């Protein structure tokens, strides 16, 4: 469990109080334990969306800032934003996103500017493709009884497709989670004593691996029609509405990548990563067939249903 410091700048007292209550709830639910600190000492700042000198000063600092804006305001153009009021899971998600950019070392955190991309990672380009392709082969291949091993400078991990699990030690897990380590392609391993390793679900490894890719991996057809044979665990996908929408549509019928992006209202890269993660979790089927229609308000029923859905989401605080 990592410890990080969080400071509040310009937020109203009730918002700060709500955040602190949520941080207490988060203990044990998040991979990072957050503590309140003064802005000077904080790793991450939560800043009000206003023009005050203090807010401007800290937004221009090199510390990652989460800009809190009211849900009746326009979304500010900042790397990290949160619409108020927000729920615990939304706070967890954004803090985990920000935390991932800070890397494993707290000492380095002050050097990270909010507009910077995540820590440069060696696990990109061809290396991650080799690992992702081998993971896909391992979980979808016929020889699921085998144990596979991938190596890195920080140790090895083992994958057992038949158990639906991978086995990893904590230091390497933290490196993989922060995308700061390169893994070799999986190779069959001899029987190994895994008692010193932590057992974790393959879907989690698939998800973390998929986040390294910038496009659809070569081992998935770009013009394919994709269908899900089971729902992924969207909890590990951070409860993002886009993943729920894509999963819902893909369990109804095969869909093309572009249709998924339009339906879920998200970037193509997010679709590609999602498809990749589902494929590496052995949930995805690529088949020929009629793809889903694009949404167009042609009849009264969907329009009325749409307004109900929109209204209900609004009332329950589920509007994204």
């Amino acid at each position, binding site marked *: 469990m990592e410890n990080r410091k969080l400071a509040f700048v310009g937020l109203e007292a009730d918002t700060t109080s709500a955040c602190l209550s949520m941080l207490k709830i988060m203990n044990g639910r998040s991979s990072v334990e957050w503590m309140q600190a003064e802005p000077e000492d904080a790793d991450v700042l939560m800043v009000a969306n206003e023009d005050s000198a203090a807010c401007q000063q800290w937004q221009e600092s090199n510390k990652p800032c989460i800009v809190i804006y009211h849900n009746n305001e326009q979304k500010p153009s900042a790397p990290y934003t949160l619409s108020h009021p927000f*729920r*615990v*899971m939304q706070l967890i998600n954004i803090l985990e996103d920000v935390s991932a950019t800070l890397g494993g070392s707290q000492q380095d955190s002050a050097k990270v500017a909010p507009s910077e991309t995540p820590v440069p990672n060696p696990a990109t380009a061809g290396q991650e493709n080799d690992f992702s392709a081998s993971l896909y082969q391992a979980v979808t291949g016929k020889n699921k009884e085998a144990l596979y091993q991938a190596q890195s400078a920080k140790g090895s991990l083992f994958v057992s497709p038949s158990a*639906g699990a991978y086995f990893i030690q904590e230091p390497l897990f933290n490196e993989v989670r922060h995308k700061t380590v390169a893994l070799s392609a999986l190779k069959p391993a001899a029987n190994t004593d895994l008692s010193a390793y932590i057992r974790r*679900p393959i*879907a989690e490894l698939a998800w973390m691996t998929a986040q390294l890719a910038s496009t659809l991996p070569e081992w998935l057809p770009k013009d394919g029609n994709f269908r*899900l*044979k*089971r*729902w992924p*665990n*969207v*909890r590990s996908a951070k*409860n993002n*509405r886009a993943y*729920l*929408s894509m*999963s*819902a*549509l893909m*369990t*109804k*019928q095969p869909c093309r990548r572009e249709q998924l992006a339009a*339906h879920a209202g998200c970037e193509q890269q997010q679709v590609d990563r999602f498809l990749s993660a589902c494929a590496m979790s052995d949930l995805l089927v690529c088949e020929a067939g009629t793809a*889903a*229609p694009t*949404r*167009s308000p*042609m*009849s009264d*029923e*969907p329009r*009325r*249903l*749409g*307004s*109900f*859905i929109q*209204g*209900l*989401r*609004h*009332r*329950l*605080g*589920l509007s994204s």
Partner: protein
Amino acid sequence: MNAVANNEFKILFTGPMGAGKTTAISAISDHEAVSTDVINTDLAQCNKELTTAALDYGQIVLPDNSCVRLYGTPGQERFRFMWPILLNNAAGVIVLLNGEHPELLDHLEHYVDAFGSGKVPMVIGVGRLPADDHSRLESLAMRLEKRGIALPIFDADVRQQDDVLLLVDTLLCLIEADDCRSMEA
């Protein structure tokens, strides 16, 4: 299925006794759920003092004054005759299961079959699962996959409002996906 009747939108919560239907409805209803609780005389089935004898009811009034009605079915098998009545015109169904129950897999199939075999938008929430136990959810998903049914199955502690909201949001996504298909038809 006409999911919008009389400017109302109905979501049904179902599952065996003690799965948390009343709690889930109360978590999101505008008002405390109206329950028809009576003293539980079937302690062998579920060890709790009160149980729902007819139905639970909650509602959420939307900004345009239309209404989302939340119904919970009674968990006892002898009230099964009420299920199709409550299912009529429902936009979707949330099935709540007790992850500790030894007949969990049978309960899953029982409720999925009784409420449309996945043809009606349906989400499964499984409570009382050990932390980080993904294998039980996996086995439930596999059981349905063998029958060609793909439904969202989540671990859900219905005492946590966020977990109930996840189930509802997922159900809404399924209803939207159905909308897309019905427009093509």
